[in-house]
């Protein structure tokens, strides 16, 4: 009996294939069913910002509301792509992005729910999506960081196109892989058009810029004199100064409404697939509270988006200078920007 069973089981290789296939399917089914289970009752935040920075805020929120929060940290674009990949299965309730572009992209794919007016009204129109699908919680300015031993403000060009001059050859640094750099390029496209932007990218490339993975590395390299100037977000200088107050570096903002100035935001959106929108809205509301806004201003040297929050002195200069009026929601065409960057032969 057993031997007949065995011979039928082991009979032909096709049967054998079938059988191992069945085992595989069973295994896959097991995994799939376990995958259906979501983390129950927890608010899931996908966070494109650093854990060191955001964790204290989340802890405060948890303590004051009693809502359990589970945060997955990662790159902003990486997490946005993950949400798209996960589709309707996405366990995420809130997406906390480092720049407006990624939020715009999710919105374009129809993944964000509309936010109630009582939240969006608190944020100036410039810092949120016109259709109220996402809102900024803190502002960050694009600046040029320069070495104060080698350069004075007067040596720096009037706008970002000035850096394509060959006198900057080998003296500048950038981080083309970085999300905020890419948003900046998108802003440039909106303002100057694709052709001029491509020209700028090629012009900078011709000046053999040093490539860095991150903004913080650019600030360190400028301070060390490895390069003379670099394109970064404003707050990296302030965070670097916390440990080394006498850093030989300063931020430069182009005068007036010159191309190259941009006030971008880190912001949040509520996912349509969220199973606990109330908890998610409570979290977003918390990010707009005075406590959180003051935290952004003090700890991360970012600009609060809510009126009436005290601004540290060092941040006031840039705020007062004019920022070109760019609809941040238009920054969503990241893929078009990447295409342009590829075409310039940069990434």
């Amino acid at each position, binding site marked *: 009996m057993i031997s007949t069973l*065995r011979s039928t*089981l*082991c009979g032909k*290789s096709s049967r*054998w294939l079938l*059988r*191992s296939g069945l*085992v*595989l399917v069973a*295994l896959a089914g097991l*995994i*799939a069913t*376990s*995958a259906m*289970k*979501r983390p129950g009752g927890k608010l899931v935040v996908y966070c494109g910002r650093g*854990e060191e920075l955001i964790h204290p805020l989340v802890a405060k929120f948890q303590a004051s509301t009693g809502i359990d929060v589970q*945060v*997955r*940290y*990662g*790159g902003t*674009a*990486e997490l*946005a*792509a*993950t949400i*798209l*990949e*996960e*589709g309707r*299965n*996405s*366990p995420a309730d809130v997406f906390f992005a480092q720049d407006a572009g*990624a939020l715009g*992209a999710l919105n374009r794919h129809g993944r964000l729910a509309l936010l109630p007016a009582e939240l969006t009204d608190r944020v100036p129109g410039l810092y949120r999506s016109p259709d109220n699908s996402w809102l900024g919680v803190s502002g960050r300015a694009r600046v040029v960081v320069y070495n104060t031993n080698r350069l004075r403000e007067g040596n720096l060009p009037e706008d970002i196109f000035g850096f394509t001059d060959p006198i900057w050859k*080998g003296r500048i640094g950038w981080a083309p*892989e*970085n*999300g905020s750099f*890419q948003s900046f390029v998108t802003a440039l496209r909106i303002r100057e058009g694709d052709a001029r932007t491509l020209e700028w990218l090629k012009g900078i490339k011709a000046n053999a810029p*040093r*490539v*860095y*993975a*991150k903004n*913080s*590395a650019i600030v*360190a*390299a400028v301070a*060390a*004199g*490895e390069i003379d100037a670099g394109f970064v977000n404003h707050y990296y200088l302030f965070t670097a100064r916390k440990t080394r107050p006498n850093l030989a570096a300063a931020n430069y903002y182009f005068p007036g409404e010159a191309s190259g100035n941009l006030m971008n935001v880190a912001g949040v959106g509520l996912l349509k697939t969220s199973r606990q929108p109330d908890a998610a809205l409570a979290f977003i509301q918390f990010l707009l509270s005075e406590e959180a806004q003051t935290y952004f201003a003090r700890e991360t040297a970012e600009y609060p988006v809510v009126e009436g929050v005290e601004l540290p002195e060092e941040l006031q200069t840039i705020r007062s200078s004019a920022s070109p009026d760019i609809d941040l929601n238009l920054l969503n065409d*990241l*893929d078009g920007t*990447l295409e342009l960057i*590829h*075409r310039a*032969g940069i*990434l």
Partner: protein
Amino acid sequence: MAEEPESSLRDLPTAETFRQPPEVLKKPPLPLVAIAAVIGAAVILPLVYLLIRATESGPHFLNILFRPSTLLVLWNSILLTVLVTISASIIGLLLAWLTVRTDLPGRSFWAVATCLPLVLPSYVGAFALIGAIGPRGMLQTLLAPLGVEQLPSLYGLPGAWLALTLFSFPYVSLSVRAGLRGLDPSLEEAARSLGRSPRQIFREITWPHIKPSIQAGGLLVALYTLSDFGAVSMLQYNSFTRAIFVQYRTSIDRSGPAVLALMLVVLTLAILWIEYRSRGSAKLYRAGVGASRPSARVRLGWKKIPALIFCSTVLILGMILPISVIIFWLWQGWSAGESLWRGWGMVWNSAQASLWAAGVTVLAALPVAWLAVRYPSRRARVIERAAYAGHALPSIMIALALVFWAARYAPVLYQSFVLLIFAYMCRFLPEALGSIRTSLQQLSPRYEEAARNLGHHPASVWRTITIPLLRPGILTGFALVFMTTMKELPVTLLLSPTGFDTLATRIWSATEDALFPQAAAPALVLVALSAIFIGVILRQEEEDVYE
């Protein structure tokens, strides 16, 4: 069908089957086949899913494929692979010849010392090179009083080529050393007595004999170069692995990295195929009777001096320089009062992940090796080949495919420890399989049969005979997987759970922030651990030889 008569012939006992142990004729137990098949299928899951994911985008697939930047990446990868393979082969060949066939002083010292670069993960070596001879590295600081403002840029091709050559040539020297030692000197002597010139002897005798070992070593170097992620990333050379990672991190559209990863797999397979095709079919073993003996050594004479300079340059660049740079940074950071050590958490995480990976991989290798060695058949061969897929699949591609797959179909597994270990298993199964298979082949089934005949239960035979006799192979496989997992970067970066800091990811993130002193301590720990494990493996192999 032409196949038919052949397959019926195959059932007849031939000379071959009589020589084999009788168990070969038995059918394998079904559970063994099922388990091995599941393992084989699991290992190729990433490849299959990547294929689905990349082609899913339809016409966009072709857009990405023929984008100028994609073609540039392809060209960069091919160029780097060819250059590194050539230079590593030359260095490896010279070193092997010098240490085996000449009277170079301190031959055995050089033989061991020049293998040391193997313990350096490429990203550690790369960041040490940047610190030492980068545009504003230590060498520039030394030369600054002489008016040297900046050294020629190390970034891009020159740096990637240098780093990968320096850290991969031991593959060639080890392989060629073995080839040279196996070459019977009587062949060359016979050729000489027949009036051949030294040049002719080299061309007609020596070269054909060592060519397979150069080729084997060169293949390892080429695969290493193609799949290396750390060095090309740090040195900013846009080959496939870096381009895939950068696009993965920055692009919302994930077809791009998927297509690139697929192209990388195709390129890897193409290299394997070229190597396979160019392998000769000549029989190169000695047919004569009697023991072979070591060949006479070439007298170098005054050439000893350039030879010694060559060996020391390789040793200094490949080992002494990187280690001293790391120690220098450690000292610099320490004297600046920075906190350089984030506690033992990351060492523990590294060790934990590596232990699990090594354990799981060895367990997975056992049934596959068992099936392949004890019940050789067509299906066993298919399963075994599948299990070897990890050799051809660069780790960034495995990681990427699993990220895609888990995000869509198994969110619970996404960024879970289980998936991380599974990815390591896919990538490193061949290493465990290789060593376990070899010791299983050496283990005659007669021992087991004898034990069975004496009335032992199969399980007790396994416990008392098989496992103890397989121990050397299992240990070597375990140590190999443990060590490579510890050094593995892309899989760990893409798949490790949030906050799961390992030595490798710590080094990576510190260098990304250009905080080199912060990377120094974990790098030293990693190198020390690698060295210990390589020591274990070498000792194990020596014991095998003497047993």
